[in-house]
């Protein structure tokens, strides 16, 4: 079924009786060409691109819970490609370009909204570091603008320019960045993959891998064994516990990231604003809620919740730069489990087990990567060679010392 304004009108006039389920609910088959473990954003987009770009459709996506129940269902919806390092920036810029055409591509309005992102700077050396980054972005074909204080005041007059503890001097602005309606991204990819014949199987937990003589032949699931020529794991925060079933230790720790949303308010914040020095970022959703967050809680956890110190820290950061939000109320807080990698950058790679592939280590930045991650993972699965923009995302990169460490924080996941 094709969605359009006309269709909405027609259905409205005829009692909305004609809408069909967005996806089938198939029983799992005995075997597939490719089994994707994890029905979150990356798993669904991988399935979608495998079908759409590489013409493969004998594919199943296995999801432990409901489609989109991972971090794509619990994030702060920011999309951007303001990265620094050559191992990252071209990949995220590819993702940005895919976002820009996504809705027309999969015929679903994911509300991709390019209202821009501004990273504030508070000192000359931060400005210099942002200049380095902005130039790297432009050199990779992305967009970047360095705002001075006057330029920033024009866009964000509500910032506390006069009394902030760390004076707000300006910002690095990426106009093409923005937000997208996170659940709709999952549903759009799911619907697209389903329409191409991919089996999306919910409530199907992978309990083990079928590994014989160093070759992965499929998976054990709560709904029986499913054979596959290729098994592609894509489970974000659950990477550690899933890959341990294949006997693998990863350069990944699981950490909780909290996110917050306020009560609905009339529009007050234009785009995304990040205050790195104070561990705070914010945007406003189309429904009017202020959506904000900050640092991860900082300890290993698989619980989708956090604790008070970070809640307070984040709100302190917010009040420090925009004291107008003091009387807005925090409505809801939640946590997601992040696959924090050792250098803050992800992996899209084969494993040492033939037929077993791994995609993970997205830290708290997986949402914006959803299109490119799926696209590049599909490329790797279909062609058995990495997509050029994701070639650095190797699992063995620490052996030779090819870290992709944007923050320069070293091998400590909770600092990235």
């Amino acid at each position: 079924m094709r969605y359009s304004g006309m269709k909405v009108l027609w259905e409205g006039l005829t009692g909305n009786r004609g809408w069909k389920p967005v996806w089938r609910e198939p029983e799992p088959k005995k075997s597939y060409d490719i089994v994707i473990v994890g029905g979150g954003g990356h798993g669904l987009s991988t399935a979608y691109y495998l079908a759409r770009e590489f013409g493969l459709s004998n594919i199943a996506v296995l999801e432990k819970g409901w489609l989109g129940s991972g971090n794509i269902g619990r994030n702060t919806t920011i999309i951007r490609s303001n990265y620094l390092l050559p191992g990252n920036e071209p990949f995220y810029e590819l993702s940005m370009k895919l976002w820009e055409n996504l809705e027309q591509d999969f015929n679903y309005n994911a509300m991709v909204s390019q209202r821009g992102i501004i990273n504030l700077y508070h000192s000359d050396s931060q400005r210099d570091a942002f200049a380095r980054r902005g130039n790297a972005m432009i050199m990779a074909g992305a967009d970047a603008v360095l705002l001075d204080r006057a330029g920033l005041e024009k866009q964000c007059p509500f910032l506390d320019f006069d009394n902030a503890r760390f004076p707000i001097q300006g910002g690095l602005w990426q106009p093409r960045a923005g937000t997208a309606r996170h659940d709709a991204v999952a549903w759009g990819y799911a619907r697209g993959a389903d329409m191409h014949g991919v089996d999306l199987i919910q409530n199907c937990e992978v309990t083990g891998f079928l590994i014989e003589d160093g070759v992965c032949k499929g998976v054990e699931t709560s709904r029986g064994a499913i054979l596959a020529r290729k098994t592609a794991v894509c489970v974000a925060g659950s990477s550690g516990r899933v890959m341990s079933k294949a006997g693998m230790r990863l350069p990944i720790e699981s950490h909780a990231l909290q996110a917050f949303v306020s009560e609905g308010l009339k529009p007050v914040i234009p785009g995304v604003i990040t205050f790195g020095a104070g561990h705070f970022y914010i945007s406003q959703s189309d429904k009017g809620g202020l959506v904000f967050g900050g640092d991860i809680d900082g300890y290993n956890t698989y619980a989708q919740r956090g604790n008070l110190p970070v809640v307070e820290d984040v709100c302190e950061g917010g009040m420090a730069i925009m004291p107008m939000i003091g009387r807005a109320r925090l409505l809801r807080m939640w946590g997601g489990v992040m696959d924090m990698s050792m250098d803050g950058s992800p992996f899209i790679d084969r494993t040492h087990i033939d037929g077993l592939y791994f995609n993970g280590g997205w830290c708290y930045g997986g949402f914006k990567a959803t299109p490119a991650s799926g696209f590049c993972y599909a490329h790797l699965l279909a062609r058995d060679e990495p997509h050029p923009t994701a070639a650095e995302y190797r699992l063995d990169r620490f052996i030779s010392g090819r870290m992709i460490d944007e923050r320069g924080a070293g091998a400590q996941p909770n600092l990235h």
Partner: protein
Amino acid sequence: MIINHPLLGPRDASEFVYLGDASLIDRPDWQAKDAQQQFHDYLYLRDNPAGAHRELWFHEQGDRSWLVVTRDTITHEITNVELARDVALQRGRGR
């Protein structure tokens, strides 16, 4: 969270700084033949268990002890707290 410090009793976790898996105590021998591989595994690879996890916390806003805390990563229940120095000595570290 509250960490029941073996010397001080219960303290809010916000007084502490987290490092990671307590296996970071087991720093390899720099003269081993495969020292680079050993250091790689030591520094970069993690069990990252869903369940009991032995982990290092530093009581930065307290008595400056490094602690080994055994905490469940699903429930956050803490079942044991030891001074990391004692653990290190038990594991054969010395001079």
